[in-house]
């Protein structure tokens, strides 16, 4: 049972320092030992105006999804904050600037007249205090944080630590912001009577001390470095650009190279070239970029070249909604490209898994000489959460199947058939290891041929290698929630899994017979655990962020089963509350 489960939002206009304040708050809460999950929204425009919302869920236990409702709102811009009110809990707390800059405000410009009767309003003169403490109104956001920290009994030392960390490259700024922060703290101490019961006091921090606060993108970048990726070629695209930017600074320190190239085709081309000569290489993109890479994916499958592609999904189709999350590229990841072109597809569900599966993808790609596509999404890429990263085992750093010296001497054939579907692979620099790889179908001697028998054999080989991967390395789906027979099962993928886990565990804790299944590798996958799960569940619900029910459809291709769909294209993550409510709705329906 969670003792604390609160969501805090800071809402302001571009230029108010909303997101910076959110970052400092999240970091401090994490320093104090809370589990946090933050997910901000940015204005679509680059500069000037637009609503910014910093949003963080805080709990004493691990959190895997957003709740969808807000308990505490800090308003740095009332006109925008008013728009957030519908998501506030009836007993939410709102903190606002009670001495704004304007000489007079009308009712629709001030949040004070729009609250529900159960809400509590606290005011502090953010602007004035910032002016007094720093001779400028720029640090209003820090004053607000100070007021927040005092009101909700946070550890002030840890706050100052976060400030020092955030502005570590500008020591003068640290003094300024600390002054503004303390002004907010002092004001509350002297002027505000606490009426609510929310508290972020936490005395034991030891539990989460080992955690790092990472976004999915940061975790993915770390996975690449830790698994020995030596080339990242990419093209900027929201929301994956950050991976390239992090790697462009970090990867050279580990002897790797980051190339920003002219388009996604060049990116996958360079990655394919590097991988073909034996170096671990990967690229990252989003839906539109993956479209461009389609031809090369097929080529890598045919030529048996190990590449790793991250697709962090966003609203589609086409250019779509570049700054909004979605899960609608599954079909593309599984099927894009002409011909029978099987590839490995993985969908991590949180930042820790982003790290683990990028590393694992580089290993699997190399071992099975096949492209691995990692499906993330904008929510996963951008949300901040506490993780403990596991080190990559030494034995996974090298996975290429080399021919033995005897095999080389006998006359090495790159395209030889094999039981496992994986042929030994020499790398340039090896005497007598020569090969030609091609997008054409080749026989075992490497000659492009068109006959039926060869095409059948080679196609078989491409499918067999995935069966081998399944047998040797791919983990099965895991179950959560109630055991044994269930009235309702929930299956999801990617970041929605977190919401599913929380919803199912909540329902199960209430004594309902609800279970869930978590699948990380979407292709190939072990049939058995899924079949057993489907057998155990009277009905199965599949929540996912796409209109067509792509994952439900994919499962339906393998199992003859009707799935209850929960499809949304709401451009925001599905919350655990929504899935829980749907679970209740389904259970309460009489057939």
């Amino acid at each position: 049972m969670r003792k604390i489960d609160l969501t805090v939002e800071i809402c302001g206009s571009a230029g108010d320092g909303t997101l910076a304040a959110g970052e400092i708050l999240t970091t401090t809460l994490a320093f104090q030992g809370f589990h946090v999950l933050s997910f901000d929204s940015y204005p679509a425009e680059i500069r000037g105006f637009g609503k910014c919302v910093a949003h963080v869920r805080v709990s004493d236990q691990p959190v895997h999804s957003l709740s969808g409702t807000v308990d505490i709102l800090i308003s740095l811009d009332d006109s925008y904050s008013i728009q957030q009110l519908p998501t506030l809990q009836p007993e939410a707390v709102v903190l606002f600037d009670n001495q704004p800059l304007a000489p007079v405000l009308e009712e629709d410009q001030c949040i004070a007249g729009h609250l529900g009767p159960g809400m509590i309003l606290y005011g502090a003169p953010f602007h004035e205090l910032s002016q007094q403490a720093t001779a400028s109104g720029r640090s209003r956001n820090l004053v607000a944080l100070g007021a927040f920290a005092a009101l909700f009994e946070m550890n002030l030392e840890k706050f100052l630590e976060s400030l020092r960390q955030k502005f570590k490259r500008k020591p003068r700024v640290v003094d300024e912001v600390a002054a503004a922060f303390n002004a907010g703290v002092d004001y509350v101490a002297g002027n505000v009577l606490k009426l609510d019961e929310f508290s972020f006091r936490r005395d034991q921090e030891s539990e989460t001390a080992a955690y790092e606060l990472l976004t999915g993108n940061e975790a993915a970048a770390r996975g690449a470095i830790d698994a020995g990726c030596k080339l990242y070629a990419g093209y900027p695209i929201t929301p994956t650009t950050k991976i390239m930017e992090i790697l462009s600074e970090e990867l050279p320190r580990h002897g790797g190279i980051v190339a920003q190239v002219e388009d996604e085709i060049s990116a996958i081309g360079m990655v394919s070239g590097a991988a073909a000569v034996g170096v671990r290489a990967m690229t990252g993109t989003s839906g539109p970029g993956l479209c461009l890479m389609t031809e090369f994916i097929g080529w890598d499958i045919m030529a048996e070249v190990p590449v790793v592609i991250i697709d962090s999904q966003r609203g589609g189709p086409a250019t779509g909604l570049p700054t909004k999350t979605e899960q609608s590229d599954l079909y593309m990841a599984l099927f894009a490209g002409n011909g029978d072109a099987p590839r490995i597809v993985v969908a991590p569900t949180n930042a820790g898994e982003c790290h683990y599966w990028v590393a694992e993808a580089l290993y699997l790609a190399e071992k099975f000489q096949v492209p691995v596509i990692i499906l993330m999404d904008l929510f996963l890429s951008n949300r901040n959460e506490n993780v403990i990263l596991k080190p990559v085992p030494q034995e996974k750093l090298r996975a290429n199947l080399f021919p033995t010296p005897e095999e080389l001497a006998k006359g090495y054939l790159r395209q030889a058939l094999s039981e496992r579907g994986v042929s030994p692979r020499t790398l340039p620099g090896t005497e007598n290891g020569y090969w030609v790889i091609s997008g054409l179908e080749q026989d075992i001697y490497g000659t492009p041929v068109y006959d039926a028998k060869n095409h059948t054999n080679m196609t078989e080989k491409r499918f067999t290698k995935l069966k081998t991967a399944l047998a040797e390395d791919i983990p099965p789906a895991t179950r959560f929630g109630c055991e044994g027979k269930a009235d309702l099962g929930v299956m999801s993928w990617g970041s929605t899994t977190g919401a599913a886990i929380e919803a199912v565990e909540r329902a199960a804790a209430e004594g309902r017979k609800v279970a869930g299944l978590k699948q990380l590798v979407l292709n190939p996958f072990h049939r058995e655990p899924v079949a057993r799960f489907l057998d155990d569940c009277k009905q199965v619900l599949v929540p996912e962020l796409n209109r067509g029910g792509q994952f439900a459809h994919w499962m339906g291709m393998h199992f003859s089963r009707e799935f209850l769909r929960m499809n949304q294209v709401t451009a925001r993550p599905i919350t655990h509350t929504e899935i829980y409510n749907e679970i209740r709705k389904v259970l309460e329906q009489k057939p």
Partner: protein
Amino acid sequence: MSPEPPIGKPELFYEEEEIAHARQVRGVLDYRSERLPTWCPGCGYFGVETALFDTLHELKIPAKDTVVVSGIGCVGRFPFFMKCYGIHALHGRALPVATGAKLVRPELTVFAMVGDGDGLGIGAGHFPHAARRNPDLTCILFDNNIYGLTKGQTSPTTPHLQVTNSHPYGNPDNPLNAVLMALVYGATFVARGWAGRPKDLQLLIAEAVKHRGFSFIHFLSPCVTFDKVNLLYSNLEQQTQPLPKRHDYTNLEQAIARARDPELFVGLFYRTERPTYADQMHSYGERGEKS
């Protein structure tokens, strides 16, 4: 899935003695595959093959350290006819693949073989970036002014108004000037050769391989099967002219002027030195360690 069949040899191969002779006199069999080329007899591509083998032999670049990347077209077959490491990439994409390979394994000698359709049509978008990045590889553009593999359609270098299989009333487009493009895109080694002068070609290729940076050779080669009117050996004999001795290949303006000249010059147009792509990338590594 059936186990590996016993290793047999491909259908066509040389007699033992001939092999021994060729191996002793010239090192070409160190680089020639057991598979014979399938280009049409008389195709200019044979000349490049020979020139390339001679170059590698002369420069003592072992086959095991050689990577040949090709696009799609008749040129695409190139790696199949060499004994080294070959990558037959996608249409228009040889340059990124070659760049990636060379970037991560700079000890390899990398070639990008592209066709006029492949390199100047679908692949044209990669050309400026390869030139300006200056990766240390050699790019040979096999220009036969036609799409040969797909049997005779117009290519980006087919002359205006020429009748082809896709333009029975004459090509409406103006052809691209590959040498001019390479110069303007900033390539650090730009040359043109043609199939009728194999010795000159070999010299150019040797220089290109020795050059530290992106070497671009525009290679004119008659398509004996699908072009009976334009790019003939006889025509090219008359139209081509070696660059004058006073041509200063360190002078970019001169090179550009010559490239625009209606005379079809052959030889080394331009050469300069500039840090390569890998040089820059490795300097980031050093800078990264310091910070």
